[in-house]
C-alpha cells in the first residue's frame, strides 16, 4: 500500500466534521469494503482515515409509525437485511441489502457507504429512490437534508461538499397495501455489482415508482415511465408492455460487466418479472 495514513476515531459528529475541515487529505471510513480495496490497489492515496464507527448516534436504526425508517451511517447492510420490520414494510430495501456481496462483506458494509461510494450500480440505491429517501448531512455549515435523487451527481460523485459527512438516511412511512420488489442481474451471485438493478414500488394509491441502477451514470428514477404507468392496472398486458417500453427510458452503457444490448434485454426482462411477481401477490 502506497498510502501512508494515520487513523482517527472521533466520538462525535462535531469532532469528525472539525477534523475533516482541518485535514483536507482525509477519507471517511465506514465498513471499508470500498475504501480499503481502493487503498490496497493504490487507486486512491490518502493521508488520514477517519473512522466514523465510534460515533454512537450513527448506529441508530429505528422505525417509528407515522415517521418512518431511520438508518444511521454506521448501520450494517446485514442489520438491514435481517430486520423483520424492513422486510415487512420496505421489502425492496431488505432484498437489495440481502443481495449485496457476501455475508462477510455485509457484516462490514454500510448502506450509507454504498451511496457515498456512488457507483452507478450501487445495490442499495434503487430501493432508496422508490421510497423517496432523504439523506441527512452534517458539515462545517451545519445540518442539511437532500433528496436521494439529488445526492447522486455523477459516476462516483455525490453532492457532498468539503468537510461534510452523511449522518444517516430516512425513509418516509408507508401505508398498508404498499408493496415493492427488487431484482438484480449480476455476473456472479454474491460477488458483484449489478449489471442491472431495479426496484419497483406500487403504493396503496396505485402509484408506481421505479428506480434503476447500472443503466446510467447514476442510479435513476424512471419518472416518465412512472407517469405512463399511472392509469394502468398491473396485469399481464401491462407487464408485456413494460418489458418493451422500458427500453425507451434507460440509457445503458457497455462496460466490463455487460454490453449495452444485454442491459436493454435484462432491463425489460427484470421489470416484467417484478410486475408479474407483485401481481401474483395481489397488487393491482
Amino acid at each position: 500500500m502506497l498510502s501512508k495514513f494515520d487513523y482517527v476515531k472521533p466520538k462525535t459528529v462535531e469532532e469528525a466534521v472539525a477534523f475533516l475541515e482541518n485535514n483536507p487529505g482525509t477519507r471517511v471510513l465506514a465498513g471499508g469494503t470500498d475504501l480499503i480495496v481502493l487503498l490496497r490497489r493504490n487507486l486512491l492515496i490518502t493521508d488520514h482515515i477517519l473512522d466514523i464507527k465510534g460515533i454512537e448516534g450513527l448506529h441508530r436504526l429505528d422505525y417509528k409509525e407515522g415517521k418512518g425508517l431511520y438508518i444511521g451511517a454506521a448501520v450494517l447492510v446485514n442489520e438491514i437485511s435481517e430486520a423483520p420490520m424492513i422486510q415487512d414494510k420496505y421489502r425492496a430495501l431488505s432484498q437489495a441489502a440481502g443481495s449485496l456481496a457476501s455475508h462477510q462483506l455485509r457484516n462490514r458494509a454500510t448502506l450509507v457507504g454504498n451511496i457515498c461510494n456512488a457507483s452507478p450500480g450501487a445495490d442499495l440505491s434503487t430501493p432508496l429512490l422508490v421510497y423517496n429517501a432523504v439523506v441527512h448531512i452534517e458539515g462545517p455549515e451545519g445540518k442539511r437534508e437532500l433528496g436521494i435523487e439529488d445526492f447522486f451527481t455523477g459516476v462516483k460523485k455525490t453532492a457532498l461538499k468539503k468537510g461534510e459527512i452523511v449522518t444517516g438516511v430516512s425513509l418516509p412511512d408507508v401505508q398498508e397495501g404498499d408493496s415493492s420488489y427488487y431484482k438484480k442481474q449480476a455476473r456472479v451471485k454474491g460477488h458483484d455489482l449489478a449489471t442491472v438493478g431495479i426496484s419497483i414500488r406500487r403504493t396503496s394509491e396505485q402509484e408506481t415508482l421505479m428506480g434503476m441502477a447500472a443503466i446510467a451514470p447514476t442510479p435513476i428514477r424512471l419518472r416518465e415511465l412512472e407517469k405512463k404507468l399511472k392509469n394502468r392496472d398491473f396485469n399481464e398486458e401491462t407487464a408485456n408492455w413494460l418489458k418493451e417500453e422500458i427500453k425507451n427510458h434507460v440509457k445503458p452503457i457497455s462496460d466490463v460487466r455487460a454490453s449495452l444490448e444485454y442491459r436493454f434485454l435484462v432491463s425489460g426482462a427484470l421489470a416484467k418479472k417484478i410486475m408479474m411477481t407483485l401481481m401474483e401477490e395481489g397488487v393491482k
Partner: protein
Amino acid sequence: MCSTAKNKGNCVEYTDSGLPKIAIGFEVNGDRFEKHVDPTMTLLQLLHNELKLFGTKEGCGEGECGACSVILNGKAVNSCLVLAAEADDATILTVEGLGQGNELSILQQEFIKYDALQCGFCTPGMLMSARSLLDRQPNPSDEEIKEAIAGNFCRCTGYVPIIEAIRSAATREREALI
C-alpha cells in the same frame, strides 16, 4: 505468499508506513493482547506478522475469496479489509481457536470425515463462515448453508462435501446439546 526468504517468515507481505503506532488491546481465541500497530496494517497482517497466527489465509486481499474470514465481535468478516487499528477492544476468533487443546471441534472433524478439503487453502475461511452460521442458526437449511459460504471460494472440492460437512456438524452439535 508464504515464502520464507522473501518475507522473513511473515506470511503476508507488509511494509511498515513508518508513521506513529497506535496502541490497541484485543482478545484472540481467548488470549488478551496489547500491541502498538501501524495505522496502515490490516487485521490479517496483524494476525500473521505480529501474532504469528498463520491459520487465516490471504487469497485475493480484496474481499472476494473469503480465505481470510475470522469472527470479529461475533460476526464473520474478511480480515483483509479490516484495519488492525479497528480491532481495538475487539474479541476475535480465528481457526486456531476452534478446537480445544489437541482436540478438533465437531465442525473440523466433519470437514475431515466428508473430505471437505483438498488443498486446504480455503478451509480456515470456510470453517469460520460455517462457525458463524451455526452460531446464529443451529439448524440451517441447505439454502442457508450455501448463502453462508457464498463468500468463500473453493477451487478444489466442488462445494458439495463442504455443504455435507456443515449439515452433519449442525446435527452433531445439536445432539451434543441434548
